[in-house]
């Protein structure tokens, strides 16, 4: 059985696509780039001696289509530009942001007003002792053009191959932009034209999860992706197996492992969280414990999922080793944390969470997964994870979608949803038996406030005695 249904393999995921871009996408990126530069130039010209300014732009032009029952629930076309200003003056730091209209005269006046408000607040605030001096960290310019469906083509392209399926999910497609400039001359521009179709198909209460993402829509790829999900759904029609709470050998497919290591972005790898007593990896950071020697994790921008520059315009190393053979190499340290605690910054963003987490594959071959699992649980996805005891890095969550009871290397049938509760020091430590040789990319599909960039690449993981509680 394939490790996960309907997901791009790492080697084929999102190479930069040039040419074939839709006229609208080119218009949007080009129009926004010119507008951003004009607005920035005006603001930077306005600065008084002793003032330094950092500017960040997040923009997108996205068509969202939500599906239920292979029909359209809602379609929303969103064009948005958001500009943030960080003023540093007389040791004070003030940050303000606003929506831009795209009209130069209106935005020039509005952002000048924002700068004025920053100055007024700087007069009132105490000195910021952790302020990071603004520097020129260099410049970059990356644009990735794709070949997306025209808006009026999207629905037919999705639903016609899925006729007869009970499909629910979200299509999002268009251009996403991140840009940064500052008063020292730094300038970064990143624009990418991509889509994703994050979906699940149902057989009554049971569902198989799929995701099709890229920069060029291909009817053949979508059909193949859907076919894999349908195959998985057929397995779910077997009689449900009643699994009692207990400890079972479990195989976490790449998407499930992606869910689990996603917890590392919730304070675990943050240097400030460690210094402030909030990191579940305190014992790892202080070398009291280590993870499995099978486990190595990098922050890997070579995956091409997200720009390397952060909101200060600092450029991270292309690859940053985080965990090597189970030992922590470094936490993620942003410049502000570095200044406060005397650490060395490594290009981390403000939240000090991974942006392109890459778990190094192991040696377990795809064909051997079920045999090595023997008797236990095959888990395609996990759901709603949270720290249940942060000091011991214990996490709770649920199983979700295509999860099966396996006996003697054969799938017997789907299981009911199970709650689990397990320490990462165990699941990724002494209980980790093997990682698969094949890893898969899980591109970010978050759409809170704006379309997210980034993602992770993970293999599957065989874990002994994974603890199920309810």
């Amino acid at each position, binding site marked *: 059985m394939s490790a996960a249904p309907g997901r791009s393999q790492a080697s084929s995921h999102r190479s930069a696509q040039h040419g074939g871009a839709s006229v609208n996408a080119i218009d949007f990126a080009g129009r926004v780039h010119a507008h951003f530069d004009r607005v920035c130039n005006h603001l930077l010209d306005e600065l008084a001696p002793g003032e330094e300014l950092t500017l960040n732009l997040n923009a997108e032009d996205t068509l969202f289509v939500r599906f*239920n029952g292979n029909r359209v629930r809602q379609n929303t076309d969103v064009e948005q530009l958001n500009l*943030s200003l960080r003023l540093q003056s007389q040791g004070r730091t003030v940050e303000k942001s*606003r929506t831009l209209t795209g*009209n130069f005269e209106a935005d020039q006046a509005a952002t000048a007003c924002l700068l004025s408000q920053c100055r007024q607040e700087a007069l009132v605030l105490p000195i910021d002792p952790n302020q990071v001096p603004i520097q020129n960290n260099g410049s970059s310019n990356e644009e990735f053009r794709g070949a997306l469906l025209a808006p009026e083509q999207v629905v037919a392209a999705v639903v016609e191959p899925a006729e007869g399926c009970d499909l629910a999910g979200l299509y999002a497609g268009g251009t996403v932009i991140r840009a940064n400039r500052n008063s020292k001359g730094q300038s970064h521009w990143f624009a990418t034209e991509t889509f994703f179709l*994050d979906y699940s198909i149902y057989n009554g209460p049971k569902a198989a999860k799929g995701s099709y993402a890229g920069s060029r829509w291909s009817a053949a790829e979508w059909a193949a992706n859907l076919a894999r999900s349908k195959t998985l759904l057929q397995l779910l029609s077997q009689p449900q197996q009643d699994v009692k709470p207990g400890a079972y050998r479990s195989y976490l497919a790449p998407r499930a492992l992606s869910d689990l290591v996603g917890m590392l972005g919730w304070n675990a790898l943050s240097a400030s969280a460690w210094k*402030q*007593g909030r990191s579940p990896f305190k014992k790892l950071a202080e070398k009291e414990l280590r993870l499995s020697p099978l486990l190595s994790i990098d922050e890997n921008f070579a995956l091409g999922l997200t720009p390397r520059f952060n909101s200060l315009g600092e450029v991270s190393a292309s690859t940053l080793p985080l965990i090597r053979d189970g030992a922590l190499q470094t936490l993620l340290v942003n410049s502000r944390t570095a200044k406060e605690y005397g650490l060395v910054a490594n290009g981390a963003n403000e939240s000090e969470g991974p942006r392109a987490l890459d778990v190094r594959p192991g040696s377990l071959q795809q064909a051997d997964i079920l045999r090595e699992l023997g008797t236990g649980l095959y888990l395609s996805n996990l759901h709603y994870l949270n720290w249940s005891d942060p000091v011991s890095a214990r996490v709770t969550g649920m199983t979700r979608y295509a999860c099966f009871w396996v006996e003697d290397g054969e799938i017997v049938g789907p299981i009911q949803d199970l709650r689990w509760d397990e320490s990462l020091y165990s699941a990724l430590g002494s209980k980790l038996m093997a990682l698969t040789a094949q890893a898969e990319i899980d591109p970010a599909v978050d759409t809170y406030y704006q379309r997210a960039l980034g993602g992770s690449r993970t293999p599957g993981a065989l874990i002994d005695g994974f603890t199920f509680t309810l």
Partner: protein
Amino acid sequence: MPTSPLPFAAALRHALPAAEWAGLRHSRETTTQRGVRNDRPDQNQSALEEGAMCEVLVDGHFGYAATADLSLAGLQRAFERAIATTRATSAHQVHRFTPNQRPAASGRYRSPRHTSLDDTSLAEITDCLLAASRAMALSELLVNRSARAMLVQTDIHYVSTSGADTQQSFELVDITLSATAAQGLESQTRSWSHTGQFGGEVFHRDTLARQAQQVAQDALALLQADNCPSGRMDLVLMPDQMMLQIHESIGHPLELDRILGDERNYAGWSFVKPHDFGTLQYGSELMNVSFDPTRAGELASYDFDDGGHRASRELLIERGVLQRGLGSLESQARCGLPGVANFRSASWNRAPIDRMANINLEPGQATLDELIAKVEHGVLMRTNRSWSIDDYRNKFQFGCEHGQLIEDGRLGRLVRNPNYRGVTVDFWNRLAGVGRDDTVHGTAFCGKGEPSQVIRVGHASPPCLFRDVEVFGGQA
């Protein structure tokens, strides 16, 4: 409200007759974050988000286009985009809607407050937060002392071709005080928050400093406490944990769009079926739950939802029996069940969906002491720390910051890392006592939807007693 006249009427006219109906929701929201950590400024940010959601009904299908260009030309372009995309998708519509799902409401709403946030100075807020941070400096073991305030001012103007014209102005404050005590490899965090629709009157220096000191004392005490014991026992939940219990195991499963399957690919489905309304014994007879956007001061109080539906208080669960779901006029049309005015969007750039507003557990008769006196062996838990529930909203596990053992009807020693788990309907049928005094809580960050949205919800609840629940602590 719009600070300058905006060409809404002309933009709406432009959408006709290509659209059967058109609506426009203009939203302007300023969110200001102020933070002090370890007596130093840590966060001074504000964000202004402003734009219009242009909505059309074409061939029985509602579709949307969002723009921040509020000129007539910009709004007209957005309507044209909405019409073109909606026409292309309407053949695959999930339900054939009519303008009846967008009533012609009109009226004004304004948050209750004594002092407008516009009249609350940055210096005043900073002074309060610094005072709170300093008040927590009781020990070097307190490695993190944080005082934060979020201030939100929102104006929403909604107009439509059927004559709707509603204007609502909201002012919200969320203050959070937090202290982390650490020693060796152990650490414990205690927090306190005050959130709701009110104004600058909540920035009272001495009150916040006193509260901060209590937070710091609690964190230090938890650091020395034993782990919560494991086993089945009685459980008293205080209102700042009840809010989470209500939110996750009542609010979400009762959303009609979840029951209809819209949310299946993201947040999940629901164990509640349409035929359960009027019959399902959701909890014990002590359980009465209301949808109440009319309660003054709660985080999600309003007069109209984002489809122009006038809001009213409705009982969702009465004497433990499920009566009504959380569904907008669209969901009601789709499933034929009664609902509420809860068609809400997070911002100008998101379409409305079924959301909670204020979901409240109605008070009972008992004092807190009387609830505790009913417990022979149990634990009292305060303040949510950890939350997780399955995609059908059945199997949950929640953790709290602060626990206290109860033995023979009396509160005993402090315990740390208290957690409990259960299954929704079974758990609510274990409800054996409801306090008489409720308090209001809420969160500004309830996530849901594709594309995703965070929205504000309020939850008022008294303390409650549950019998024979699975309780456990952290690892030794």
